[in-house]
């Protein structure tokens, strides 16, 4: 059961999950689940364009996602439409464009199914190296913008009043997200990336008391989901991507069960130092 291909899948999956957890926390906090969808929907367009230009597909996907980020920020600043409406328009617009491009160009090497569910078994040593390289860059960027991004999530007004340039940090975050989708697309597939972005943070919320704890918890739960999902896939001969998502769902469901602890904090009733 533990052969080289299994270890490769494990290494690739862990690399994606460890980055997706902390990144996904902001999608949960800012109620931007659609943002992950937009990035992954635009991946098809990037993939097709990369095929046309004969460049590395990851670069094409990143370029389209990185282009969508400032477009979204500009449209948001213009006002008039809610963020989720804009995201849905961009997401489905990009998906339609991608499907059109694929149909018109009829590229022989494009395989939409692999794009959707991913192919973890196909991860080469070079792919894995790329995942960890890009992943490290994304985490570094996230650490860099963590404070302003978090402050503007709590209160944009406050972040601005204290000179924390929230727009700049949002742009950095969006570019990091484009990078994450590009690196994860081949491995878990674009449609499953959103699950790895959303489910582990939601599962970690229950156990976290600070934003940082939740980010680390999400990385941990994502990694556990990859391990359990891959083992289950190998044992029962299941597709690895969906198995990972189901494992994450099980962790999320487990967090919904009541604990005997209850809420330890009851402000006002506890006596204050004597």
């Amino acid at each position, binding site marked *: 059961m533990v052969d080289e291909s299994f270890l490769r899948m494990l290494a690739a999956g862990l690399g994606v999950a460890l980055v997706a957890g902390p990144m996904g926390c902001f999608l949960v906090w800012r*109620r931007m689940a659609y943002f992950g969808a937009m990035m992954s929907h635009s991946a098809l367009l990037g993939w097709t364009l990369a095929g046309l230009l004969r460049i590395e597909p990851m670069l094409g996907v990143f370029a389209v996602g990185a282009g969508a980020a400032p477009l979204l920020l500009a449209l948001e600043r213009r006002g008039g439409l809610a963020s989720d409406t804009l995201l849905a328009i961009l997401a489905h617009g990009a998906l339609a464009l991608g499907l059109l491009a694929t149909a018109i160009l009829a590229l022989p090497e494009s395989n939409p199914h692999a794009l959707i569910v991913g192919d973890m078994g196909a991860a080469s040593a070079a792919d894995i190296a790329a995942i960890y390289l890009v992943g490290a860059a994304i985490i570094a960027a996230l650490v860099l913008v963590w404070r302003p991004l978090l*402050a503007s*999530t*709590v209160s944009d007004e*406050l972040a601005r*009043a204290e000179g924390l340039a929230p727009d700049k940090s949002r742009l950095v975050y969006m570019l990091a997200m484009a990078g994450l989708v590009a690196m994860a697309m081949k491995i878990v597939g674009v449609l499953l990336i959103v699950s790895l972005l959303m489910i582990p943070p939601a599962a970690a919320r229950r156990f976290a008391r*600070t934003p940082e704890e939740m980010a680390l918890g999400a990385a941990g739960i994502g990694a556990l989901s990859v391990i359990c999902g891959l083992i289950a896939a190998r044992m029962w001969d299941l597709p690895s991507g969906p198995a990972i998502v189901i494992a994450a769902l099980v962790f999320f469901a487990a967090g919904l069960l009541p604990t005997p602890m209850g809420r330890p904090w*009851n402000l006002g009733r506890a006596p*204050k130092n004597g």
Partner: protein
Amino acid sequence: MIDTPINADAPSAKAPSARAPSGSDKPLRAPAHPTKEAPATTREPLVRLSRVGVFGGGRSILEAVDLAIEPGEIVSIVGPNGAGKTTLARVVLGLIKPDEGEVVRRAGLAIGYVPQRFVIDPMLPLTVRRLLTLTRPSPQKAVERALGRVGLDAAAEVPVSALSGGELQRALIARALLAEPALLVLDEPVQGVDLAGQIALYRLIAELRESLGTAVLLISHDLHVVMAETDRVLCLAGHVCCAGTPESVCDNPEFARLFGADVAGALAVYSHRHDHTHEPDGRIVAKPASATESGDESKEERTGKAREEGARTTEDHIVARKEERGRHG
């Protein structure tokens, strides 16, 4: 040379707040002793707005507003919705650059900002400590001292979601105090706080002014209650409709014209009755008779020894105010 004019030349590409509200990681603060750049005599205003005008959306939001905030004074801005109160606060904070007029801040002025009530997404776990260190790191001792000042001594590790409206406002005030501000700007601090909690918050603000010497700019859409410690009330309706002591504003015919004689007549200046104290969540607690008689109530409140639930929970001013509310909706 003395002052830092922030006007048309303020850098707008960067955060316009780079100057006044402490920028980046080094908190600006008002010099404890006068420096060469700011040989600030005590009569030097912290912020001076001269003929400030702001336009937006094809209309005038603020027009020819004059306002000077002196060290240690409490200024209340009252006015109906859409009067430009929040815009005025944003001009004072340096968040927006006025289209007309001039804003002059004392060099190195640190402003503590308590924004309008906001909702924290329940998916975002945040302890009170983490809320206080949201925009800049702070040593643990400073956090605890700031919490102690607002009566939330034991609350550092409590999740923000467990706080009542009044407690959240106290935590946000503590957060603003960490910058050691010479001026506190509070935008609708009592919004969504029950009456007893409102009075406790007003009392806290007055105490902070007394113990820290902080000037306070208080914004309120509530015309009915203006805190008694307010030195000056500025009644805003796009322009300064009237200004002065709370009593003089109440009697001002312009004020009555703008808000209607019945509403203006209902403006109650809240005065303390020191026969009780308040829990941080606003619950009223009776004081021991001796404390009431000694008149040393503020100290008594801070030590928080009087904790038994008081039998007396009605207060003349609350009752009076409720009646007014009932009459005017």
